[in-house]
C-alpha cells in the first residue's frame, strides 16, 4: 500500500527521516533511483539513517515492482529523485493517489514555485497530465507546512516567467 510518493533530490535525508517517516507511520521506504542503487556506499548510508524497524529498499527505477508495492498491506513511502521518474513508475503499476514535491533543486530553465521546488516547463506539463489522471499534486517540504496545490504551482510558474 502506497502512503505517499515524494519527489526529493536528496532521497533519504533529515526531513524524510525526522518528519515524514513518523508522520506517515510507514513500515517500508522504497527508493527508486539508479544512481543511489548503483553505489553500495550510498545504499548503506541511506539504510543506516532509517530506524531498523522500517524496511528500506534501494533499487534501480526499472527494477522496482511498483504494482506489488501498491497491492500488499505494508504502508510504504516511495522516494523518487525527479519528476521525470513519476510517469515511468505510474506506467509500471504505481498506485498514485497523492504526489508530494519535496526538494526539486534549481537548474537552468527552472522556475521557483515554492521555497524548495523549482520546475522546468516539461515537468510542469508532466504534473498537469498526472493531475488529469486523478493524482493530487502538492509541494511541501515537511508535513507541518501548508501544502501548495498544483493550481497554485502552475500560476506561480507562469508568473515567474
Amino acid at each position: 500500500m502506497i502512503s505517499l510518493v515524494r519527489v526529493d533530490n536528496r532521497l533519504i535525508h533529515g526531513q524524510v527521516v525526522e518528519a515524514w517517516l513518523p508522520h506517515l507511520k510507514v513500515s517500508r521506504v522504497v527508493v527508486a533511483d539508479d544512481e543511489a542503487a548503483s553505489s553500495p556506499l550510498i545504499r548503506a548510508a541511506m539504510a543506516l539513517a532509517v530506524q531498523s524497524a522500517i524496511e528500506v529498499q534501494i533499487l534501480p527505477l526499472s527494477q522496482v515492482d511498483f504494482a506489488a508495492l501498491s497491492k500488499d498491506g505494508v504502508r510504504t513511502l516511495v522516494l523518487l529523485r525527479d519528476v521525470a521518474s513519476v510517469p515511468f513508475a505510474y506506467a509500471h503499476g504505481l498506485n498514485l493517489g497523492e504526489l508530494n514535491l519535496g526538494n526539486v533543486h534549481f537548474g537552468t530553465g527552472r522556475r521557483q514555485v515554492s521555497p524548495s521546488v523549482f520546475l522546468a516547463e516539461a515537468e510542469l506539463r508532466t504534473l498537469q497530465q498526472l493531475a488529469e489522471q486523478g493524482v493530487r499534486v502538492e509541494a511541501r517540504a515537511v508535513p507541518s507546512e501548508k501544502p501548495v496545490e498544483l493550481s497554485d504551482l502552475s500560476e506561480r510558474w507562469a508568473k515567474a516567467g
Partner: protein
Amino acid sequence: MVGLVVASHGRLAEELVSTAEQIVGKLPAVATCNIEPGTPVEDLRAKMKQAVSRVDAGDGVIILADLFGGTPCKESLMMCQRMNLEVLAGVNLPMLLKANSLRSEQLTLSEMANQLASYGQRNITCASALLREAQQQPRT
C-alpha cells in the same frame, strides 16, 4: 504540552531551533535563551524566567542547556528548585527533534527528561564505523 527552552552560550540556541524547524517544520511552545560575553547574570536570569513562563502551559518545561556546568545550565538548575522544570545539559540536534516529538506521548516530565538524556547519548555515534559494519552486512 510540555514547553521547551533551549539555553546556550552565543547563538547556538537560536540556530539549533531554526535548524530543527528547517527539518521538521515550525516547533510549537519552544523558546530560546542565550548569554553573550559580558552579559550580566541577572539579565540572563530574567530572560530565562521569561522564556520559561512563555512556553509553560501548565505541563512543565524542559530546559535543554548546552553545557553541563555552564552559566545557562547553572541558572536553569537554580530555577528548577522552585518550578516544574527539568534541566538537560549537552543539547544536540537529535535531542531537540526528539524532545519536540515526545511531547505528543503521555509521559511525566521526569520520564521525558530521562528518555531524552539517553536518546541524546545514543545519537552520538561513530557513524563511519557503523557504515563500515553496514557494508559488511547490508540491509538492502
